[in-house]
């Protein structure tokens, strides 16, 4: 199963979980499964329309990807807060 890797404040929001195994063959499904596993993350990575939040990045095999990126069973999907703020 693919694994979602959480770091920083989103890891805190997930109760300290850094790695979550999820089902799914795309990043979108993986994020949806992540929300099922960690209800506290509902609305954090994607908004209620299912759109990736503007300042959240997904990385797969070293490259930034969109929600429709295919995810393999051995992949690690990193959810990263973009460098932004004020």
């Amino acid at each position, binding site marked *: 199963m693919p694994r979602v890797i959480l770091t920083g404040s989103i890891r805190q929001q997930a109760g300290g979980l850094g790695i979550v195994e999820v089902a799914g063959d795309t990043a979108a499904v993986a994020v949806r499964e992540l929300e099922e596993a960690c209800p506290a993350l509902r609305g*954090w990575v994607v*908004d209620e329309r299912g759109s990736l939040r503007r300042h959240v990045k997904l990385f797969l095999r070293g490259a930034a990807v969109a929600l429709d990126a295919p995810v393999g069973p051995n992949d690690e999907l990193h959810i990263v807060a973009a460098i*932004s703020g004020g």
Partner: protein
Amino acid sequence: MTELLVGTKKGLVVLRRERGGTFEVAARAFPGEVVEFAIRDARSGRYFASVTNGQFGPHLFYCDDPTAKWQQAEGPAFPPGANAAVERIWVVEPGDGDGVLWCGVAPAALFRSGDGGKSWTLVEGLWNVPSRPRWDPGAGGLCLHSICPWPGDPKRLAVGISSAGVWLTDDGGETWRRGVKGLVPRYLPEESRHDTHSHCVHNMKRAPRQPATLYMQFHGGVYRSDDAGETWIDIGSDRGLPSDFGFPLAIDPHDPDRAFVIPLTADADRVTPAGRVRVYETRDRGASWRALEEGLPQSQAYLTILRQAFCADSGKPLGLYFGAQSGEVFGSANGGRTWSTIAARLPPVLSVRCA
């Protein structure tokens, strides 16, 4: 004890003062995050904080002790059919009825909770009013920022939207009508003012002892309504205010004739006029205004006070509190007669509410 909830650009600051003492920082929650608004529901004792995380979006939290752990509410979030996402949670307002609270967000929408604020549902009646596609945002976005329940009648509600005017319901939110008669949008060409949806309400409060009385700070104009928001009377022109532009508005919950504003210089210069920080009070429903300034900075003080950053408590004498983007919080324990600086070096203040 007096407790103030100060939403800042870098977290929630809880200020407390024991009788006869000075205000101290009792807690800081959501460090580093934008806390747009925080309030305590006096009925349940529950606290709410609207937090906009720079990366992970806006979320509403609640707790029973602001120095302890907060829980995330279920919503407010738009249902799938709405094709919208909450951008910012502007206000939470206790309603009339057991466990009822209201929440206003951007893009302009109203949410209702019937379980004390744990979960929230979109008020579809307002979301579906036919004119909504023609609503325009103000500089702060298209936001529903003012919610005025009617004490004793849970079906009646008035809300203020920047810049889509006042909306009124008498059936608990099923149907809505506009209440903008008398408002003059001077920021529009004269020939465009009659048939516009652009009424930039900056703040609106209801007098709980006389619910048909509402006060409004408009985008250029201070108004009062004597008929529950159907029509509006200019109370800002030539009555002693240095400017009729601003955002903050507070009322005395015990006296429907008494209201307070903090004018800013102008639309294009949103700081306290002439470098002086002054609160203006009316005790005669807006027939006249007088400056309250003793203890407030009276020179070289160009402060910006945002719409949610001014409040009155329910005390007698009345307590008044406001915060500025400079990070200062000012308070008066005697209805504005004298003021003191109760916090001097906070992050930019976005909201102030008495707990």
